[in-house]
């Protein structure tokens, strides 16, 4: 799976509200995709679309800044509009972004492969630079 190439310093929330906060359970970089580990005090960790554990595939949000384990972390939720880059487009206009099989990453749905549990993150805007978040965790693995 070829993830979108994101630059942490470019990540920015463009609309108010639609954010949540928690405590990081791992080192997290702005723009990374998160899940909530209910087995570890609800800490926020990096989601992984081919994890064997359903909870790890259940996207909670997208990190809006960097944090190390034990530090407060704010994330974008469904409804948020997140700038992914100030440079060139990270993906095609209108592309659907999904959680990657690389922990914390996001990728175009066209990269989806057999065995991946599809979790839609949202769609890129007409510039290919802004993600409108709309998380949908299917819980279904892509068949071979």
């Amino acid at each position: 799976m070829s993830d979108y190439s994101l630059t942490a310093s470019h990540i920015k929330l463009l609309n108010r509200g639609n954010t949540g906060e928690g405590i990081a359970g791992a080192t997290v970089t702005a723009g990374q995709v998160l899940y909530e580990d209910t087995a570890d005090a609800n800490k926020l960790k990096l989601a992984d679309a081919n994890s064997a554990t359903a909870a790890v595939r259940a996207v909670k949000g997208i990190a809006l800044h960097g944090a190390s384990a034990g530090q407060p972390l704010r994330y974008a939720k469904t409804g948020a509009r997140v700038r992914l880059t100030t440079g060139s487009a990270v993906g095609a206009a209108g592309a659907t972004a999904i959680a990657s099989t690389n922990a914390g990453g996001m990728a175009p749905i066209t990269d989806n492969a057999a065995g991946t549990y599809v979790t839609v993150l949202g769609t890129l805007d007409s510039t290919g630079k802004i993600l409108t978040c709309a998380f949908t965790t299917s819980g279904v693995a892509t068949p071979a």
Partner: protein
Amino acid sequence: MTAFTITAAQVAPGSGCQWKWATAGETITAGMAVYVTEGGVAMKATNGGTEAQAECVGVALASANLDQPIPYAYTGTVVLATGGAVGIIGDIAILFTTAGSLYPALDISGGYTTVVGALGATGQELILAPFASGIVWTD
């Protein structure tokens, strides 16, 4: 002049720590002292600039780039290190000319006197008590 050596990845909320959120006006790293503008923008605090820049309100608890949310502790204890003391137990931490950095009070040699807090019983944690005097230190 030697700033307390703080490793960003080791900074964390400690006992009684409470924090607020602001928007970073520049790149800020966990453990840096910050001031916050009326518009809610957090910047690295320094005693070598304007009085407003010396009005430290707390310490960043995570890292952020420009326009990203940044949590800052304003009361309670902040863990600054886990591997050893960052300074002498009971040291008073103040602002200095290096924006965002914390220095022992004995190092002051000019600029606004702003106390950020004191190192706790292990020398690894900062007990926050921000106090911006608005007074320029004069030898």
